[in-house]
């Protein structure tokens, strides 16, 4: 038991690693700050394209989202980060992470938002259009707000997934939270820094998880 605490909950090691992890957390938040808005806007475009009158656009976006939902994000990230340089395109890890996660999360946000928009009956469109609102204004001011409310639980839980996703940026040497923790682990031969990183993720995400599951049950009943 002592060995267990020594290995996983070593306060001394945690204290030493703490400043490093805080810097890592800063990077994690920076990635989130870039990727969440990018993914949301991308998802909005995906949802619009899926509702477009052009069959070509609808089908090609559908195929793209299905591909990105089938591809593990880590594969996508490594493809962008280690694959592209072979063609002479060299990207910073941050750019690679943004591109890969943008593609991945646009597909997911897109699916959620599409379901939301489809949940709004044609009556809302007709009512708004009959008052002279343009199609764009109808979408932005009438349909989208209701759609977002209808799929709020899914949006929250999808955002949690994006935050968790940033941890795999460590694989391409982004000095975010998990990377810093793993570095500290390999120096100290002690898993406590990674446990501490886990605790930081918990502090960050537990409230969101609670919120998501409360929203889910409210809508469910």
């Amino acid at each position: 038991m002592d060995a267990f605490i020594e290995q996983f909950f070593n306060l001394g090691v945690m204290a030493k690693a703490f400043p490093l992890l805080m810097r890592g957390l800063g990077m994690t938040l920076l990635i989130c700050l870039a990727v969440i808005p990018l993914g949301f806007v991308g998802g909005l475009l995906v949802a619009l394209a899926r509702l477009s009158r052009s069959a070509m656009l609808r089908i090609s976006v559908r195929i793209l989202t299905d591909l990105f939902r089938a591809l593990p994000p880590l594969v996508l990230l490594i493809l962008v980060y280690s694959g592209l340089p072979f063609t002479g395109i060299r990207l910073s890890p941050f750019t690679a992470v943004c591109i890969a996660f943008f593609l991945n999360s646009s597909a997911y946000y897109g699916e959620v938002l599409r379901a939301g928009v489809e949940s709004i009956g044609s009556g809302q469109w007709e009512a708004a259009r009959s008052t002279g609102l343009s199609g764009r204004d109808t979408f932005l001011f009438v349909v989208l707000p209701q759609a977002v409310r209808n799929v709020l639980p899914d949006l929250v839980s999808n955002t949690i997934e994006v935050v968790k996703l940033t941890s795999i940026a460590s694989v391409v040497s982004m000095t975010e939270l998990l990377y810093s923790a793993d570095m500290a682990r390999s120096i100290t031969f002690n898993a406590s820094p990674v446990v501490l990183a886990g605790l930081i993720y918990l502090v960050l995400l537990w409230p969101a998880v609670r919120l998501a599951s409360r929203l889910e049950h409210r809508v469910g009943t």
Partner: protein
Amino acid sequence: MERFVDTFFNASVIASTWPKILSGMLITVELALSVVVTGLAFGLFLALIRTAQIRLLNAAIVVFVDVLRALPPLVMVLIIYFGLPNVGLTLPSFAVLWLVLAAVLAAFAEEIFWAGILSVRRGQWDAARSTGLTFPDTLAFVVLPQTIRMVLPPLVNRTIAITKNTALGTVIGVPELLNQATTAVSFLSNATPLMLAAIGYLIIFVPVVLFGSWLEQRFAFRKA
């Protein structure tokens, strides 16, 4: 263009690496199936336990679910894979990944099953119990069958999203699809194996993604 083909679809690289890629694909499928079967079964089991309304047990389940929803799987993989050997417990990397992903899937599945069970109206329980059906029989024959339609689409989507994380195995050296590909890339200085791996994942997961959308549409239509 030629350069692109040469880097990403190089015929001689394909010829020399496809057996490795294929063996990686098999391991990915093996891992995925183990995760899906055990994760879903354990998730359903937890949801069933929760119906017994034992306060302490329910609180434990909620905490388990919350923690596994909040922690990135890679964090758990690293803790278990690199931490446990130092306390004298060495698990093979395949087992570590399976354990973590199955637990994560179980947590999400429990939430989905539980929401489904809650969505069945109380009158259904009343009716079944009033004819003398036992609690387990009521669950098995009356309540659970009614949740399938509501539960299946999110369950399939969640299962795909979690099972794709088998690619994390590459970080701890599970010889799965991505691992085989990245090893080959560093040997051959050519991106073709990565492309093959991507195609491999598409072959495995696109059918399931399509199945998921089909389910969603079918059930949305029935509801209307």
